[in-house]
């Protein structure tokens, strides 16, 4: 079930990987599986700031770690 608040995040991954990604998102290591790379992390940070006003600190190690999983990206925004 998609959280409407984070539709923009689902859309980001759907645009790249297709609709089936929604089912798999929660179980994937997004970096390990090659779905996102360093430029995508920046793109996600821009998207998050644009949609939520939350500015992501890209210098922090925990930001990079959080970007590995969909749930932890949401946690990062919720902090």
């Amino acid at each position, binding site marked *: 079930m998609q959280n409407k608040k984070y539709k923009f995040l689902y859309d980001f991954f759907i645009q790249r990987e297709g609709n089936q990604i929604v089912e798999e998102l929660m179980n994937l290591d997004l970096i390990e599986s090659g779905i996102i790379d360093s*430029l995508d992390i*920046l793109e996600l940070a*821009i998207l998050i*700031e*644009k949609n939520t006003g939350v*500015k992501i*600190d*890209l*210098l922090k190690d925990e930001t990079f770690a959080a970007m590995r999983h969909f749930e932890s990206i949401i946690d990062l925004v919720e902090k």
Partner: protein
Amino acid sequence: MIHHVGIASKELDVVLQSLTLGQSEIVEEIRDDLQGNILYFIQQSPEKPIIELVIPFRDNSTVSNYIKRYGTGLHHIGFKTKSLSLSIGKHKFLRGHFLLKQYEIYVECFGGMVKTAFIYANGMLIEYIENV
């Protein structure tokens, strides 16, 4: 005033050919093990911006993904600053601006040891350098 421009490419010869420059015009070469790149510097005259050619030597270098996505191209614009922290601070609260990296590196043609910061600013990559 622009201090230097950084151009990323998979191969040195390709980018030199694009710029119609020769290897003899390279004034300095640095292997940056931390970023995974070999940097080649060209300074045609003291009044002109330095050209920094950034060539990755490993897959996870800081420019590898950029090159995979965009090919050879202008990667960043470099500015000298008297205060790196002040320059970074000007971007801190601006929308679409993100501090990406900070480190120190020795570059002879930049005046020796420099502190550097890369900032993504609404589609542009800006590098600030401050002499240490």
